[in-house]
């Protein structure tokens, strides 16, 4: 069961985003991207507006293609939709890859319908796939330790269901992509 003291997702996103500088972020579709955009915008952020499930895979391709550290902000529902990619990530073994799963035990962005993470533990799944460096955070986040760990790293971030009242992202998809690619090129 969820502990009463766990954070809202937006608070966890804010804490983690504030501890990042040069890392590249791939952020999941729906409210997670809106919340990240609201608390902190940066050219290092790629906001997804579609393709549910693909955040972890996009992050993998990016991590294998350049040297900078890649942090993926994913959701429990999305990881469940594309679970095979955990196996690919582990097998490809990218040292510069961190997968953060904001687990609110629901499809938050569509009205908080339950996911099966009420029954299964994503952290145990990641460990059984083979991930060596894994973290579980509930009331506090020690992201510095995560950044110092050798990838691939799996972070199980438990958060409350519900979405913050934040506006939609007022950037065109192409603008998001082009700004991000410029940033990658600036310092590969």
């Amino acid at each position, binding site marked *: 069961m969820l502990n009463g003291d766990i954070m809202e997702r937006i608070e966890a996103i804010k804490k983690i985003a504030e501890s990042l500088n040069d890392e590249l972020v791939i952020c999941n579709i729906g409210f997670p991207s809106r919340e990240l955009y609201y608390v902190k915008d940066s050219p290092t952020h790629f906001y997804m507006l579609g393709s549910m499930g693909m955040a972890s895979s996009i992050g993998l391709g990016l*991590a294998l*293609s350049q040297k900078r550290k890649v942090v993926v902000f994913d959701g429990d529902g999305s990881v469940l939709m594309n679970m095979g990619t955990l196996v690919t990530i582990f097998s490809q073994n990218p040292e510069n890859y961190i997968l953060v799963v904001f687990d609110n035990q629901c499809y938050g962005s569509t009205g908080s319908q339950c996911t099966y993470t009420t029954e299964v533990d994503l952290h145990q799944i990641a460990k059984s796939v083979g991930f060596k460096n894994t973290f579980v955070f509930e009331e506090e986040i020690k992201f510095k330790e995560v950044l110092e760990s050798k990838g691939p790293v799996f972070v199980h971030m438990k958060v409350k269901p519900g979405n913050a009242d934040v506006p939609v992202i007022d950037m065109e998809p192409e603008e998001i992509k082009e700004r991000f690619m410029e940033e990658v090129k600036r310092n590969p």
Partner: protein
Amino acid sequence: MDSSETVYKALKGAGIDFVVSLPCVNLGKVMELVDCDKDIIHVPVTREEEGFGICAGAFLGGKNPAILMQNSGLGNSVNVLASLYELYRMPVLMVMSHRGTEGEFMGAQIPMGKATPGVLDALNIAYINPKTHEEALKVIPEAWILSKTALAPIGILLEIPFWK
């Protein structure tokens, strides 16, 4: 040069440096050639949809990505092609073994084989089906230039007779 060596040579000619793959009987040798090439990052995937996600990340990271897949995998990838590739305008070279075409020996391949061109049309994805090795060597690099210029995926459909 056999058909697999031709496809590999065409990928090299196109400047492809990042390949994701999921096998078809026809693709086994191309995958081996790609895997042995130190200048190509090769990522075998568990599902084609995931492969398209990985290729999109590779493109964001500055690579020239291609996917080696069976046409059945197109059915696994419709949403990512629409709501990632079309939405953000990204290129990828889709090299597909097109089963269920002339000379198919497995009835099970026919439904998706027949649906494939229609699915590509519905997604507004241009595709070419080179019939000969010479044609493949010429059109595959051209197709990648087109994909990168138009910022859209492009399909290469290699039907059963091509692999004979």
